Structure formats: structure tokens, C-alpha cells
């Protein structure tokens, strides 16, 4: 492998990794604050992408507005999911909450198939035009958007968590939910807010990656598996870990795919097993007590 090819594979891997990071950060955010592993994160994004597709084709929404509208739609979906599904089960059992997210995933797939049918469709990239050459690296315009979107999202998320009182409340809940309630923090509205943010991130990630696949109800399945690998690698515990984990997975996957195309996807499962065996805390995990 020449150095130029290596560089190209790495940078292109980073853009894929940025998507895994976006999905993974959303999962970790929801997991750490509400203590629910959201198996529907990928399919939430898939469903929102269908909504975006509908906006473009049927409602004739201008292309420039679609990204913002899709993020807003994601937030609304997250809000509704928390308010009308998670909240009523929260007091019962933790396992049922997790099962509920699995059900939610199927629900989104079913809804997408029912409303828009399962025919694969092409979803055009948000920005078009010739790839850009930076030194030896050739990068598509959409890839640059993806990288920027991941960086901006990470920045906004950081500011939210560490500079706003709602963010501080979310972190406090992740450390000691009982104490947060005792102090009078309105935990239900924080949960709703976190689901809204997490789902909006799912929508953003799906919308950015869909041009690489075709739009069909199952297109986020594999992406979600990779995002899970990313958060296991990052240590489950931190949004930062999920981001770094996602980038590493993206790069490694791209390099492996170049040398051994056949094992590209199964390789990630090997990574999960190895990480869990050798480094169960992940790269940035601090054990149980720290959750955000």
C-alpha cells in the first residue's frame, strides 16, 4: 500500500467514522442520562431520512432547508418517544425499557415500509460537485460536510453538557438520579430533552450517510452495529469516547476493507470481542460511576 493510498483510505475512513461517532454519541448520551440502551437509534435516523425524502420529493421543500427540518423532525420524534413510550414504562422494569427500544426499531422499519414502501431509492447528497483535492487526498464534497457536521455537533454537545444548566442536570442524573430528584431537578423534562437531542443526532447522521447506500428500511442496520462497536471501544461511558471510538472504527474498517474486502463487516464483531476481552473498560471508560 503506497503512502498516498494509505492517506486516502485514512481520511475517507475518518468521514465514515464521523458517522459512527454521530450515531454512537447519540446512543451514549441517551444511555448515560436515561440509563436506556437505545437499540432504535439507527432506525430513528432511517425513519427521519424517509421523512426528509418525502419533504424533498412530495412536499417540494427547498433542498437547503431539508437538513434543518430533518433535525427538527428528529427532535420531535425523540420527544414523542420519551413522552409516550419510555415514560410510562420507566417506573416498571429496566429490561422492558430496552425491549421497548427494540420494538421501536421494528416499528420504524414497519412504518417506513408501510408509508413509503420498501423499494430502494436513491437519495442525493446534500452537496454535489466534483471531489476536492487536498494534497494527495481526494475527498468528496459530501464527505467534507460529514466531517464538519461531526465536529460541530461534538462542539455543540460539549457546550450543552458543560455550559448549560440543563446539561449540568443531565450529567447529575447520570451520576445519581435519586439525588437529582431530591434536589428538585425536573428529571422528566431533562429526559425528554435528551431524547430529543439524541434523536436529532440520529436523523443528522442518517441523512448524511444515506447517499452512500440507497434509502431502504434496513440501511441503518449495519451503521448501528458499527456505532455500538465504537462505544464499546470508547468505553460506553463518555460522549468523547464514542466520538474517538467511531473515528478509529471508521479508519480501521477502511484499511481492512482495502486489504481483505471479504471480512470488512465481520471484522467489527471481532473487534468487539477483543475489546471486551482485553480492555473491558474501553479506551476512556472509568468503570460504572461516571456516565457522562
Amino acid at each position, binding site marked *: 500500500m503506497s503512502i498516498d493510498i494509505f492517506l486516502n483510505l485514512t481520511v475517507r475512513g475518518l468521514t465514515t467514522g464521523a458517522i459512527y461517532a454521530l450515531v454512537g454519541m447519540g446512543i451514549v448520551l441517551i444511555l448515560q442520562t436515561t440509563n436506556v440502551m437505545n437499540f432504535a437509534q439507527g432506525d430513528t435516523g432511517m425513519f427521519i431520512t424517509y421523512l426528509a425524502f418525502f419533504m424533498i420529493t412530495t412536499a417540494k421543500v427547498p433542498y437547503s432547508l431539508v437538513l434543518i427540518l430533518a433535525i427538527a423532525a428528529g427532535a420531535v420524534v425523540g420527544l414523542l418517544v420519551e413522552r409516550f413510550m419510555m415514560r410510562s414504562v420507566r417506573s416498571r422494569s429496566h429490561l422492558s425499557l430496552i425491549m421497548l427500544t427494540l420494538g421501536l426499531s421494528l416499528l420504524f422499519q414497519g412504518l417506513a415500509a408501510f408509508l413509503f414502501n420498501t423499494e430502494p431509492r436513491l437519495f442525493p447528497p446534500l452537496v454535489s460537485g466534483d471531489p476536492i483535492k487536498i494534497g494527495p487526498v481526494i475527498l468528496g464534497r459530501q464527505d467534507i460536510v460529514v466531517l464538519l457536521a461531526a465536529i460541530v455537533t461534538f462542539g455543540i454537545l460539549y457546550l450543552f453538557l458543560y455550559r448549560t*444548566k440543563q446539561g*449540568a*442536570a443531565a*450529567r*447529575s442524573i447520570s*451520576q*445519581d438520579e*435519586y*439525588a*437529582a*430528584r*431530591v*434536589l*428538585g*431537578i*425536573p428529571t422528566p423534562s431533562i429526559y425528554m430533552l435528551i431524547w430529543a437531542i439524541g434523536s436529532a443526532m440520529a436523523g443528522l447522521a442518517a441523512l448524511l450517510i444515506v447517499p452512500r447506500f440507497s434509502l431502504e428500511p434496513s440501511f441503518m442496520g449495519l451503521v448501528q452495529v458499527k456505532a455500538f462497536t465504537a462505544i464499546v471501544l470508547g468505553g460506553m461511558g463518555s460522549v468523547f469516547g464514542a466520538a474517538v471510538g467511531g473515528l478509529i472504527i471508521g479508519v480501521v474498517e477502511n484499511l481492512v476493507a482495502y486489504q481483505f474486502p471479504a471480512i470488512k463487516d465481520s471484522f467489527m464483531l471481532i473487534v468487539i470481542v477483543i475489546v471486551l476481552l482485553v480492555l473491558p473498560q474501553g479506551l476512556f471508560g472509568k468503570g460504572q*460511576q*461516571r456516565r457522562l
Partner: protein
Amino acid sequence: MLRVDQVVSGYGAIDVLNHVTISLDKGEIIAVLGANGAGKTTLLRTITGLIRVRKGAVTFGDKVLNGLSPAEVVKCGISHVPEGRHIFPDLTVEENLLLAAYIMPRSQQKSRLDAMYAMFSILADRRKQAGGTLSGGEQQMLALARGLMPNPRLMLLDEPSLGLAPKIIGTVFDTLAHLRESGVSILLVEQNAKRSLELADRAYILVTGQVALEGTAHELSGNEMVKQLYLGGTR
């Protein structure tokens, strides 16, 4: 000011409190004593809305608290310092304090924060330090300060002396005496009956979810049963 009237509450199928009636006047310190499992903590949790009132009523001033969320109860002017302190270990001292005044506007938060730093100078020194790095005594001071942040009219304290060195326990009780002078009423749940009766105006003894005995702290200190069971006995 606070009335707990024939209250029944509990967890799952079990009623822990069975028709408990307690009252507290403005400026009073009331101690609630009792063995483990007598329902002391449940009483506090019921008042703050962490668990539901099944029968009876909790009123504060002329407000009925039944069915209010913990956040709404804090808004009414009642704060709760939980057993075991429950400091957020990875948040700074300042973040811990600010979260206790979550509902307040920014400007008010700031002035409460300054008031807390004036009252607990050790917290001012440690404001940027993570809560989990404080010593047990410092954490209890932080827990008390969190209870005071929302400027409550009534503070519920659950075992503030638990697990602390005797010298620090002294400091905690001195702080409580000082709070009384500043006009905050206190409902104190304690294992340390001797100290509590010295501080309190009146006291209730809970036994298996019912008020077995009530009276002024002075009366109860002289009561034979109380002496035997809670003050270490006298020969």
C-alpha cells in the same frame, strides 16, 4: 406550618407509614427518632413527593402537597438533604450547589451561591474541585449547603451525622443551631438521639410506621422508655 395528617405511604404492596400525624410550627426544630425500618426516611420522602401519599394529607402553610413532584415541593420552600449525602462525585462543588437551585433565575442563583460560600468557607476554597474528592465532613457541609441553596423555609435532614467523626458531628449540629436563628425550620431524622434531643424543640418517636410517642425534647429526654431504647439506657 407543616402538617402530616394521618398519612399512609410505602413501597409496592407494603405500607411503611400507618396513619402518621406530625406537625411543625414556624421556626421549630423537630426531631424524628426511631430504629432502622421505623419509617423515618419514608416520612421525609413522602413529604417531598418522592413517593406518593396513599391516604391522608400533607400540607405546608395552606398548600396541599399531595401529588406534587419533588421539583414542585422544592418550589414551595421545602428542601431535602438525603441520607448518605448523595453528592454528585464528578461535578464540581459549584455545580453541585447550582443544581440545588435549578428552578431559580441566574441572578438569584448567584446571590445564593455567594451566601453559601460566606457561610461555608471551606466550600468556597473547594469550589472548582470535584464533589467526590471532598472528605466526609466536607461532603456533609456541601449537602447542607445544597439544602440551603433554594432558600427554603423548611429543611428536611436525613441522618446528617451518619458516618462522621464526633468532632465533625459537633460542627454539623452547631450549623443546625445557627440555621434555626436564621429562621429556617428543621425536620431532623437522626440515629443520634442524644444530640437531636439537645437541639430539638419537640420530638416524635416512630415505631414500625406509627408515632409511638411525642412531646417536647425535654419531656422525651426524661422518659424511661426513650432512655432505655435510644439514649443507651441508664441503670
